């Protein structure tokens, strides 16, 4: 399995994201150089659900930040689809501080709409629809500190969906919630993706999560991060963790990652 699928390049207008030999090096305060990414190549078609899995500190977040335009690569280039515009239809869901603490759940979900000048009444009704969609009806007026970790991530996803993203970047969004909540959130996200079909780039260090969610799982090597392996997951959704294919995949990826650790 080659990490690059440039060979079977789809029609240009269907490409959501093209990353071409991108490298990024950081300089620590003590003057040490840390190469986060080296020669990363990736082609993402519109509507794909990509999960990126790798050990902590392998440059996954750096890659997302580059895609989001929050940082620039030292080498190589990134190109997003013609229909993608930052601050318009590219949304980013973080692991922490995903919501504005001074806004209610409703206010948080409505934020993007408010910035676009959508009238108050309209954005309120759209935001409460979205909150209902992520299972947070009745929590419209709750502040983030009044919500549980799982509820906060639900609200954060609703907040991102409010701007009707064509590309959704997610940086370990379920990293801080307990296992059963995590499964619920994964299922919800799968359903949302099936309904709206945005392109999703989902970063996680949880192998199970990567297989449950992704249409393709990309395994990143440790520092410098590059795409070491790619697995196409054809298992039907919602995915059953108890199947042989699932566990085989899990073991393969597990082995890849533990080789890195040695």
């Amino acid at each position, binding site marked *: 399995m080659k990490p690059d699928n440039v060979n079977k390049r789809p029609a240009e207008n269907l490409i959501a994201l093209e990353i071409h030999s991108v490298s990024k090096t950081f300089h620590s305060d003590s003057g040490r150089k840390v190469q986060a990414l080296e020669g990363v190549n990736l082609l993402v078609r519109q509507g794909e659900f990509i999960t990126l899995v790798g050990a902590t500190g392998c440059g996954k977040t750096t890659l997302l930040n580059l895609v989001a335009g929050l940082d620039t690569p030292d080498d190589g280039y990134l190109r997003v689809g013609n229909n993608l515009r930052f601050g318009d239809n590219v949304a980013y869901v973080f692991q922490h501080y995903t919501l504005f603490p001074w806004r209610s759940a409703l206010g948080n979900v409505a934020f993007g709409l408010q910035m676009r000048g959508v009238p108050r009444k309209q954005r309120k009704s759209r935001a409460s629809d979205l909150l209902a969609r992520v299972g947070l009806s009745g929590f419209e007026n709750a502040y983030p*500190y009044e919500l549980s970790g799982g509820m906060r991530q639900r609200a954060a996803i609703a*907040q991102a969906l409010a701007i009707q993203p064509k590309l959704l970047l997610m940086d370990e969004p379920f990293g801080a919630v307990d296992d059963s909540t995590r499964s619920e959130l994964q299922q919800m996200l799968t359903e949302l993706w099936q309904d709206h079909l945005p392109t999703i780039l989902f970063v996680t260090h949880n192998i199970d999560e990567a297989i449950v969610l992704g249409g393709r799982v990309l395994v990143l090597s440790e520092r410098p991060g590059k795409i070491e392996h790619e697995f196409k997951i054809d298992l039907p959704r919602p995915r059953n963790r108890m199947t042989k294919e699932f566990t085989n995949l899990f073991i393969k990826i597990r082995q890849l990652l533990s080789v890195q650790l040695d």
Partner: protein
Amino acid sequence: MHKEEPKNRNSRNWSKLLGWTAVPITLLLIWQIAAKHLNQPWIFPPVTSVIEQLAHPLREHYASGSLLSNTLISLLRVLMGFSLAAAAGVTLGLFIGSIRIVRDIIEPIIEVLRPLCPIAWLPFAIAVFKLKTLPQLVGVRYSNTIFDQIQLGMIFVIFVGGFFPIVTNTLDGVAGVRRNYLLLAQTLGATRRQIFLHVYLPAAMPMIITGLRQGLGLCWFVIIAAEMMTGSDSGIGYLLMYASDNSAMDIVIAAMLIIGVIGALLNFTMSRIMLNFVSWQGKEV
């Protein structure tokens, strides 16, 4: 252990009640007895004569006005000086705090001027503004209203007193905004102006209100001190000085009580605003 707790809270309520009733009453009683015993009201007046003064807030004390009129003058001065300080301090703090380069350039001068006691500005303020009043600023010599007592020099000194805590707290609040919130707003499509209004401002709000609270307290300190200086001819601080010069210690103590109560009320109001307005403070997740 379980039953202990409500009992504990109960005793807390009792001690609070004692603090607000029995302790002050005892002190007042001791004061009354001691003053009667001493019998030198020009130094140590009895409680009753202070209460008598407080019960007649409209009584004119020669040319210096009444307790009430002078209190109102002081409050009006503070209100105006503080409003100016709040407007300037919050605006400048937001601006300075959100732009790193501006912060680097401006902060040293703030740090030098901040520790300077606002009262030290008074001679300078009087020299610059003479004894010009607010109506005179717009060309009216005497308006025959309370505004004739609003000297620009006084306003300036109150402004200085309130400005520094407000600007430094706002600045710190803005500079301490989590980068994540800025990124989040950016990805959700906020423009620079919107980020200022919808991220920097609300995120810094707890610090801004803390600054306003400190600033208002300091303004009230400063005005009393300024009014006690020579050259002043009105305000509760002035009345206090005037009464002292005339050995009317009952008025002095009445004025002190008024100053203390108003200071406490201002502080209480600001902390209530803080509680209601930024309930999320310290609960970031």
